[in-house]
């Protein structure tokens, strides 16, 4: 499947999902979404790097929120996890679609040494996710919240890189949406941690 078509197919799938309720409007909306879901050709190394880093970051994040959808005791937190799941799943498709358009790989080097070179490991890796998997009851929420707040802080840090050094307008707009949504998610989670 050519990448361009992949992006359109995503939009169509999203709309078709709810089509039972509004079949008449779906085709028009699908046409309107097509252009914006493509990143366009022009991009620089930062755009590529940012998307590759965020693909890996999203995959980790999805793993964590899916644990929280089941493991969190508060309904509020389960709902937040679910909403993050569905929105980040779509962001992930968008980003892999754009990397495909640019004929770039969607994976990056995860070797810890690569991170250590610039001053330390990031917030979440396999060990942290394993710890989350083991945590039960009240400990689960503490573990999830402190790990996921840190995880989203990392997302804000990476977004800053893209908005200042990226060149592709769609990728930069994505980074700005990430910056805003993660900042507000952190706000909600810090509130949950202390209520």
């Amino acid at each position, binding site marked *: 499947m050519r990448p361009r078509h992949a992006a359109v197919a995503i939009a169509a*799938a*999203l709309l078709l*999902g*709810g089509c039972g*309720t*509004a079949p008449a*409007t779906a085709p028009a909306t699908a046409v309107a979404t097509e252009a914006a879901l493509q990143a366009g050709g022009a991009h620089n190394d*930062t755009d590529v*790097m940012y998307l590759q880093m965020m693909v890996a970051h999203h995959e980790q994040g999805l793993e964590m929120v899916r644990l929280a959808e089941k493991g969190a*005791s508060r*309904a*509020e937190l389960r*709902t*937040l996890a*679910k*909403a993050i799941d*569905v929105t980040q799943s*779509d*962001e992930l498709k*968008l980003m892999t679609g754009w990397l495909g358009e640019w004929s770039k*790989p*969607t*994976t*990056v*080097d995860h*070797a810890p040494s*690569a991170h250590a*070179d*610039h*001053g*330390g490991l990031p917030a979440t890796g396999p*060990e942290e996710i394993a*710890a*989350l998997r083991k*945590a039960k009851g009240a400990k689960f929420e*503490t*573990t999830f*919240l*402190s790990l996921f707040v*840190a995880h989203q*802080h*990392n997302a*804000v840090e*990476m977004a*800053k*890189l893209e908005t200042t*050094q990226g060149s592709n307008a769609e990728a930069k707009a994505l980074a700005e*949406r*990430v910056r*805003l*949504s993660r*900042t*507000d998610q*952190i706000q*909600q989670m*810090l*509130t949950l*941690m*202390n*209520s």
Partner: protein
Amino acid sequence: MERVVTVPVVNSLYDTLGAMTMRRSIAYPLVALGAVGSTLFVAAPALAHGYVSSPPSRQALCASGAVANCGQIQFEPQSVEGPKGLKSCDGGVAGFSVLADEGRNWPAKAVGRTVTFTWVMTARHRTSNWEYFIGGKKVATVDGGNAQPDAVVTHDIDLGAFPGRQKVLAVWNIGDTANAFYSCVDLNVGGGAGSGATTPPTTAPAPTAPATTAPATTAPTSAPITDAPAPAGDGKAWAPGVAYRTGDEVTYEGVRYKCRQGHSSIRSWEPSIFTLALWLPL
């Protein structure tokens, strides 16, 4: 009924994603790792690093919005970094001086005699130790073994000798740099159960504020996280800070939308082509 309809849709998206993930992980070893990795992290921003999230430190109160007008620190509570040995809440960083401003009436969390401090760490440096101070006096040291910290760092510190309103300075001393991270946590020690309510801002020490004013832990069902300006749904204008439920309808920029996944609305989660997972145009 709407709820029933949306569930299989969401599940099918998971399945698609699962398949994509699998394909990617198979392709992983084929990628030229060296070429990607070498350029990747040189240009990455300095990742900073950690703070006390619970009980909320001053920077956590800024980041959660509980205390307003904090300036830049609200966006990077993890960045209060300074040379080791300081006794200041702002780590000597000029831009974060609000954290050392005692005139801000920082709300003090009511806690029991033993307090569990939880850290959020955005980069896992090897750790020399953690230190806790009250009034310039050290009340506890937790050894870090010059190792990478565990997934979640929590310390149970006995503050029974310090009843009433206290400002705790928590310090994370890094093992592989000359720096430390600083968090000040305002507490009302012995004023209530361990996970009690936050007392209202006050300048005078308030010795006994019972923790009975925290309804959030007893009514966790579906209360909005932030104040809802109006009952959600039924075609009202979309707004941030509202707990929308699946099936709620809103209007945004002249278009009507139905909520497909319950959520508390935030910036960039307004109805758009990028949030079709949350909002379906009608």
